[in-house]
């Protein structure tokens, strides 16, 4: 254990790894700070460009973008009242009033310190949890992994498409079903060739290898988002007046250690639930701070505690969200779906391997995030406090062609296949209309990402049981997962009816 930790620390303490952490953080902070862009889009367009890198460098770069974006989202929330992503929405409640009161630097200081402490401490908790996760992971066989993946899709679909259960299931299952095109992962058969085998001239354009889910990710998060933000006026603000003391903000965080710890714990817990993510953690934590405050009247009027609770929690969700993705390869959010894409692209198989042969990689990833949180604090205090307002002046009209050029190049780089470029276009348009009508884009992406896990584990289960579905009911863990799946899918509908019946 100790030797593994030392080995992992050695892996992170390389100059090029530290450079990738810094590069990822800076890119993440910029992506996160640009309203409408966000870390997921940043990760999606950078992902295919990591092909020439090694697995560790590539995934450290991606998690650094992911981590930096959570912090970056607070900059626009504090300075211009528009959070970079929904994960910093609650930061606006007190962050922006502080800016209006001439205390913007103090708010930025709180944001940097709370994000770094919340994110860093929960990563340390994750380090402590890793040895206990391994036996849990090993308890899951093919039937349980199949059920867990299905549960993940349904849960994310239900939460994200809150307009209706059917919309969520439809989105998630569509993601699964489109990945059945091409060579089956359980046999040599090519499914859905679309064109006759005699059409050799256009064979490179055919879907023998199916859709690449990374191209789907890029399309849905790059073009889909660009279509959505296209109507936002070019530059959000011309001039921002930044005043106050940044170190007063750091002092505020250290003055409220319990609030910081409680918010971080909420963030980590909420983050580990698939589909809930940073936005929910942000609000839960803020609500809890408001509920437990003796003098809650000042919340919403520039109270530093509001910024502490919101910011300590959203960065802490990263540690929580890594648990299902490292343990089972089941992403709970769009960010971790892209991260899983990074693992797969670089031949890293989440699950038992990450807690066995590849344990040093797992620790190195976590340690890189701990180091990343220290860098967040330093960048926040010494760079963002001075130059952060520039981010509010980035012109969205200029951003669109840059993002699209990266998206198209990245998609083509995956397999040098023009079909991946077409995939970006088709799924980008699809994502725009899905978001418009309340169908979950995240559920579709996660369905596509989990499709292979679902198919291979279902096939393995069926082989083990010689075709009997009873394999999904014959042990307590499977039964628990089936029950959880049913409760989550049907609970919102049956619950009120049952309650009504028992009340009567």
């Amino acid at each position, binding site marked *: 254990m100790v030797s593994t930790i030392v080995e992992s620390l050695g892996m992170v303490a390389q100059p090029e790894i530290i450079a990738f952490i810094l590069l990822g953080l800076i890119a993440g902070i910029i992506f996160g700070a640009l*309203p409408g862009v966000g870390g997921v889009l940043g990760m999606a367009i950078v992902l295919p460009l990591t*092909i*020439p890198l090694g697995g560790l460098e590539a995934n450290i770069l991606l998690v650094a973008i992911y981590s930096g974006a959570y912090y970056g989202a607070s900059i626009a929330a504090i300075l211009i009242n*528009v959070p970079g992503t*929904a994960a910093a929405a609650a930061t606006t409640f007190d962050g922006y009033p502080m800016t209006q009161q001439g205390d913007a630097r103090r708010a930025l200081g709180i944001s940097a310190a709370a994000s770094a402490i919340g994110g860093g401490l929960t990563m340390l908790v994750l380090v402590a949890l890793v040895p206990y996760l391994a036996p849990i992971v090993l308890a899951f066989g093919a039937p349980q992994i199949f059920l867990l993946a299905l549960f993940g899709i349904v849960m994310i679909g*239900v*939460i*994200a*498409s*809150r*307009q*209706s*259960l*059917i919309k969520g*299931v*439809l989105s998630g*299952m*569509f993601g699964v*079903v489109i990945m*059945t*095109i091409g060579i089956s992962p*359980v046999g040599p058969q090519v*499914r*859905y060739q679309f064109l006759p085998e005699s059409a050799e001239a256009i064979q490179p354009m055919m879907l023998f290898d199916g859709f690449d889910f990374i191209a789907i990710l890029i399309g849905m998060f790059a073009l889909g988002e*660009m*279509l959505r933000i296209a*109507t*936002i006026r070019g530059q959000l603000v011309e001039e921002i007046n930044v005043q106050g003391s940044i170190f007063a903000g750091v002092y505020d965080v250290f003055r409220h250690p319990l609030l910081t710890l409680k918010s971080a714990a909420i963030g980590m817990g909420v983050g580990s639930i698939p*589909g*809930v993510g940073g936005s*929910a953690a942000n*609000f839960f934590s803020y609500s809890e701070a408001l509920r437990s405050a003796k003098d809650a009247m000042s919340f919403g009027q520039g109270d530093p505690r509001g910024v502490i609770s919101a910011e300590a929690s959203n960065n802490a969700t990263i540690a929580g969200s890594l648990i299902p993705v490292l343990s089972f390869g089941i992403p709970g*959010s769009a960010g971790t779906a892209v991260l899983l894409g990074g693992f797969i692209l670089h031949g890293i198989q989440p699950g038992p391997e990450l807690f066995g042969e590849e344990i040093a990689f797992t620790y190195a990833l976590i340690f890189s995030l701990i180091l990343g949180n220290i860098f967040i604090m330093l960048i926040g205090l010494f760079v963002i406090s001075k130059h952060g307002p520039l981010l509010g002046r980035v*012109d969205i009209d*200029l951003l*669109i*062609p840059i993002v*699209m*050029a990266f998206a*198209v*190049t990245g998609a*083509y*780089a995956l397999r040098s296949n*023009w079909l991946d*470029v*077409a995939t970006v276009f088709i799924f*980008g*348009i*699809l994502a725009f*209309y899905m*978001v*418009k*009508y309340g*169908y*979950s884009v*995240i559920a579709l992406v996660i369905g596509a990402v989990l499709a292979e896990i679902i198919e291979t584990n*279902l*096939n393995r289960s069926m082989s083990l049981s010689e075709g009997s579905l009873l394999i999904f009911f014959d042990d307590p863990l499977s039964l628990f997962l089936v029950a959880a799946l049913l409760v989550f899918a049907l609970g*919102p*509908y049956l619950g009120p009816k049952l309650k009504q019946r028992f009340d009567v």
Partner: protein
Amino acid sequence: MGRFARLEAFFGIDTEEIGLLLFFIVVSTYLLVGSLAYSGFVGRYPRVFSAVVLVCAVLCLFRQRLPEPLATITSEPPDLVGFDEDEAEDDPLEQRARSAETRTVFGVTLSKRAIVTLTVAGYMIASVLVGILVATPLYVLAWGYLVNIDRNRLIAVTVGTTIVLFGFMEFAGINVDIGVLF
């Protein structure tokens, strides 16, 4: 949208959502029918999942016309968790003042979204034909012209993206200079 008014009245949802659901229905039907050509697990697996997609899409399409028990499962549930990650309506950007910008291109008035879609489609087609390296500066210039980006900034972005592409070609070995034509 006038000519689709009867369609909207029948289904009780927007034409665009009808189009989206028809897309799901057509794709899932194709995959369902296509899966019949494969035997064993390789065929049964896509058959089951495409059938689920088909049923869900049909239920969504006819949700305003469903009888009571079925209507319940397609309607909004009472309360789930209370938050979600990717709903446009929750996005503060959606609440931000928007510019209802339109541009007249060759005598046709287009929304900015339509310009994004058309330029990206053109960019992708040009990339296939002449390679990404040539298509990218053309796309950036066309976009800049259509949305009136300041000339200096436009030149900077065009040069910047081209340099980055050269970087990909040199250091990552991506053949961005090859298209179908040359």
